[in-house]
């Protein structure tokens, strides 16, 4: 005969196990959900500063080229923030409904670091790279669009390195090389060649 106090203890422990299992299941479910939601959140507050005219190099999938597009956006005075706002303005076009070169929802530029002499480091978020369509031309259009937009609006940008979530990545989505540092002059020539 099992003593009564042990029966009660076993019963309580069983309930505790079941309760913990249920709780663990809910926590795991909850932990998975915010991943997608978090990616869609803006990573920085809206820029403040006088509106300036800039030139964005917008990829166009139908034509397979970059089109220079004038835009007026508020730009801060600090160089690094200007670089970030330029690329965020570009990405606003790509994630819009009628995007000529759709990127995945939640694609963001986390930061741009300007390292003298002439090196810009673009840090993209995971949603940008993980959700990017795979293909030589699609990926090339994205990479050159980012680089050319920076180079055209921030003189003295000679080289550009692209990171994803702060880390080096081999390719954007299986094709465009992200392990190397890009020469902005070579990219400008390529953009001209594309026209």
């Amino acid at each position, binding site marked *: 005969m099992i003593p009564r106090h042990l029966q009660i203890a*076993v019963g309580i*422990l069983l309930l505790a196990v079941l309760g913990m299992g249920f709780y663990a299941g809910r926590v795991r479910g909850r932990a998975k959900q915010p991943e997608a939601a978090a990616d869609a959140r803006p990573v920085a507050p809206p820029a403040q500063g006088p509106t300036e005219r800039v030139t964005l190099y917008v990829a166009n999938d139908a034509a397979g080229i970059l089109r220079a597009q004038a835009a007026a956006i508020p730009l801060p005075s600090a160089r690094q923030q200007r670089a970030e706002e330029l690329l965020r303005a570009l990405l606003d076009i790509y994630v819009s409904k009628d995007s000529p070169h759709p990127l995945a929802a939640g694609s963001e530029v986390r930061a741009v670091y300007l390292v003298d002499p002439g090196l810009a480091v673009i840090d993209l978020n995971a949603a940008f790279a993980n959700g990017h369509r795979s*293909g*030589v031309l*699609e990926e090339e259009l994205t990479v050159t669009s980012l680089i050319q937009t920076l180079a055209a609006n921030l003189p003295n940008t000679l080289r550009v390195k692209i990171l994803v979530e702060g880390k080096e990545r081999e390719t954007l989505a299986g094709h465009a*090389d992200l392990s190397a540092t890009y020469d902005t002059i070579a990219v400008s020539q*390529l953009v001209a060649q594309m026209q």
Partner: protein
Amino acid sequence: MRYFRQKAALGFHRDSSSRASVRLLILILIAAILPLHSTDEKHIMIYAPNVSFSLPITDRDGREYVSLLECVEPLGTVTTRTDGLHWRLHYNDGDSEFTAGKNRAKIRGHDVDFPGNFLLENGRGLVPLVSLGTLLPRMLGAPVSFNPVSRRLFVGNVATHLTAQLSHTTPPRLVMNFTAPVNPTIATEPGRLRMTFTREPLVAPGTPTLTFGDKAIPSATYAENNGVAELTVNGTVPLMASFSNDGRTITVAPTPQQPAGPAPGTPAAGGPPSAPSPANPAAPVPPSPRHYYAVVDPSHGGDDRGAALSDTLAEKDITLALARRLRQELESRGIPTLVLRDSDANLSVDERAIATNTAHSTIYIALHAASDGRGVRVYTALLPSGGENNGPFIAWDTAQERFVPLSKVAAQVVAAEFQRRQISVRSLQAPLRPLNNLTTAAIAVEAAPPGTDVMDLNLPAYQQNIASAIATGIAAVHNQLGVAP
């Protein structure tokens, strides 16, 4: 602490039944925790004359079980019916009856005993894995060969046999002949080339270890586990596999290599030496048995599927099909061609670059496929910043620099051939590895569908036209590249 331990021990001695309760509790806790960490799924692979399929194995009471319906459903017409504890299965023209908790079944009117009890879970009949060798021959009316240790089951005479023979040439070649076409996944690692046969009913050779008495390829071993057969060729030099005879023959040989220095007949004799590879800096290599004029690289492969062109079409499959056609077209024009990947193998871009540079070919052609756009795109390397080449020391990232003019000539001629055939074509530079790591003329061709339907990429006529255009362009450009094929 000491006090609590003694007190607990006393408590346990007081009543042995309380020990059982604690054990039960521990078992429940383990059972609750284990599923969270269990990742290694067990499978059984079933090979039948027209179909091969894999089924999951579940554990019940420490014994391996498998769903009987799922075992026979792909093999014929099956219906099942549950009646209380009785479960009836009608397969083609025969009935089988099982009873939950019993180890005896009535199959085609005969009582059959099998090891372990039949389980009925939500109308799903589970039988012990080891009982399949007893049950299936009677249910199917066909001979069944089952290895419960490796979890591979063969229905009828479907086994694929293998013979291996080493040709003691220089370099040696291990020729493996199979009685049916095979398409294993091939992976290379230092000292071995591993072929994994998942769908092929490959059976063990006479002995699991084959010894060849050769220095470069001393042995090969056969093993099977969890529904998969694996053949590992051991080598003291980097090995590569090539397929022939419609997939019935696999030849394993050392990766073609030549001594460092200018290759005979390369565009600039005495010009740029080969780039040192990060993985294999300056290893002495045996002379190549054959000079390949062209290297064809079907991009992606293995775990890297490339672009998902459709739900069913992966880029890696299109590039492989194109590569095989291109090799045929090039060789029919007298151009010796090396295809870097002739199966669904994993190859890193560095490995592709190393194989190409050591082959000292005159032209490298990477093949890609895309769903966007129309026609084809022909690319040359967009070189990255930096990477100065100083004399014989060539930077890996910009090894292509001195060959860019030749690459552009090749790209122009190939693009012109596409235009001549009225295939829409664009010529561009692209930041696409391994183009920038190659010490030879190098281009990449990305094939998009001819029209709006991406599945047209799979059309043999379209693939043949693309392959033929590239081959014609390469054959036409050989004078400008400076070497006759």
